[in-house]
């Protein structure tokens, strides 16, 4: 199992049903792990299992040196005795209690005399001073979320769990709350687990991310690494990488270290990945950011790096960024998608049917085990 150094959170869950689970990850103190996956991928179930609200068939959950679940050792600690702060997706505030009442409910571990002061400190920390007497129904979504966070922190938890905390608020509030969470976590000395289906959110907030699909953790690592170097075609699809193709490993060289992959009559130079044997059928992927458009007016040195010619298939303007799909010449339909600044697209006259050339950055190309790549290949 992944190790969090004894002080963080370590999770391993496995069962065939009723909800299939095969999850293993760790989250050290002071770090934020994002559990990312589509709806129904088991993210919330994993969070509930950490909190003790779901009991998996087999598994082990350790946090801050304490064992909360160990099915082999017949250990199951009730949610009340796990030091967990959980922010529910719809906040689950107590509707009959005031803001202060909600927070004080979670302060049962403190002497009665200290609870009011502590609640006031926590509410100040989440910028809710002045709203102490209000009922949850009279608060905005963002304010309700802050109450939920204050309540979750009230127990001085050993881990903070956030279940899609930004899904119920509007875009402006979401951005504001994300900034606040980023600030707040700087002051927390505990692991934080964030469940989200939003890759952008995970990329902004998380130190590490774990991709879940059908209850299984497929890849864990720093967000940039997971999103640019997926371990499998499935992960590539889940992190929305569209440029997935089939190829054959042509060979490796050690000086300079690189691997060559044959693809549609090209021999691509790619980042050295010697684990794949020469002659092996593989899939490879390149994020859109690794595709460089050749400028018509001013050729550059980078154009020697895996040049590929094609015809522009579609150009979609999305504000400042334009998404371009290039049909590779002689490929029978293989398309490379990449973003360019809209002004660059305009300056280069990019339009459907126009010929264009791109370079595929060797360092950005990731080789994966072969698997039917689907529509992108």
């Amino acid at each position: 199992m992944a190790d969090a150094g004894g002080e963080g959170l370590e999770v391993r869950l496995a069962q065939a049903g009723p909800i299939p689970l095969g999850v293993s990850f760790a989250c050290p103190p002071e770090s934020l792990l994002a559990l990312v996956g589509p709806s129904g991928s088991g993210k919330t179930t994993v969070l509930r299992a950490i909190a003790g609200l779901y009991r998996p068939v087999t598994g082990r959950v350790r946090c801050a040196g304490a064992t909360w679940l160990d099915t082999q050792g017949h250990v199951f600690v009730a949610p009340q005795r796990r030091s967990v702060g959980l922010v529910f997706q719809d906040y689950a505030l107590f509707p009959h209690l005031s803001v202060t009442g909600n927070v004080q409910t979670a302060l049962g571990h403190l002497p009665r005399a200290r609870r009011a002061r502590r609640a006031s400190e926590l509410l100040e920390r989440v910028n809710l001073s002045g709203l102490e007497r209000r009922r949850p129904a009279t608060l905005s979504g963002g304010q309700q979320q802050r109450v939920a966070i204050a309540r979750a922190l009230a127990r001085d938890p050993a881990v903070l769990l956030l279940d899609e905390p930004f899904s119920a608020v509007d875009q402006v509030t979401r951005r504001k709350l994300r900034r606040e969470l980023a600030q707040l976590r700087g002051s927390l000395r505990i692991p934080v687990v964030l469940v989200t289906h939003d890759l952008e959110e995970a990329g902004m907030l998380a130190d590490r991310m774990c991709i879940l699909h059908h209850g299984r953790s497929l890849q864990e690592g720093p967000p940039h690494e997971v999103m640019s170097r997926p371990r499998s075609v499935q992960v590539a699809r889940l992190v929305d990488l569209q440029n997935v193709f089939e190829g054959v490993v042509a060979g490796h060289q050690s000086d300079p270290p690189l691997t060559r992959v044959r693809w549609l009559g090209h021999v691509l130079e790619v980042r050295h990945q010697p684990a794949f044997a020469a002659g092996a059928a593989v899939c490879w992927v390149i994020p859109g950011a690794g595709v460089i458009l050749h400028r018509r007016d001013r050729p550059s040195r980078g154009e020697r790096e895996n040049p590929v010619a094609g015809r522009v298939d579609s150009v979609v303007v999305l504000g400042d960024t334009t998404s371009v799909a290039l049909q590779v010449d002689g490929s029978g339909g293989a398309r490379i998608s990449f973003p360019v600044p809209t002004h660059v697209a305009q300056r280069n006259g990019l339009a459907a049917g126009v010929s264009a050339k791109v370079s595929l950055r060797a360092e950005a190309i990731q080789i994966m085990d072969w698997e039917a790549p689907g529509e992108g290949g």
Partner: protein
Amino acid sequence: MDFDALALSLRLAACTALVLLPVGIATARLLAWSRFRGRGLLEAALTVPLVLPPTVLGYYLLSGFDAAAPPARLWHALTGGSLSFSFAGLLLASVIANLPFAVLPMQRAFEGIARNVREAAWCSGLSAWRTLLAIELPLAWPGVLSAMVLTFAHTMGEFGVVLMVGGNIPEETRTLSIAIYDRTQAFDDRAAGIMSAVLLGFSFAVVWSVYLLDARTRGRHG
């Protein structure tokens, strides 16, 4: 006006409501939040007194109260008393007959509490007992109160079951509804009329208060 009968009816109604308060809460929570084998059967059994003729229920209860029957023997062994034609028997019969009036409103009230609100209470460190007292009951109280009011009112007006298992013993089993029947049989229209008016007024006030309570609850949470 038979004040002894009125006092007995009030005592029976209060005791029935008191007994059904914990029984109703426990059963309602079980039915609201647990899925188990035989749940449908239990719900059906609890609802049967609502549709069964009171005489049928009374007949079976009377059979169970027979001195040779196990429930009566157990009661005799515990208290030395009898269930037939006694206040204790009347109370037991009343509790059984009122189960649906107590359980169904409470069940709806507990079903209205979101599961994650209870889970949030557990994750806030509240024990199951504290969660019941601090979160569940304050949220479910309109339903619990409705159940108690309905139980009380229904017991005040219960006739068939009371007549079958209690008979008509002054100060022991003669409730207001039995007294009305008794006075009517004796052509004492004035007494029957006064007591009927008291029950009518009481029943109307009760049903009205339940509606008011319901409207207030909807206003607060809707």
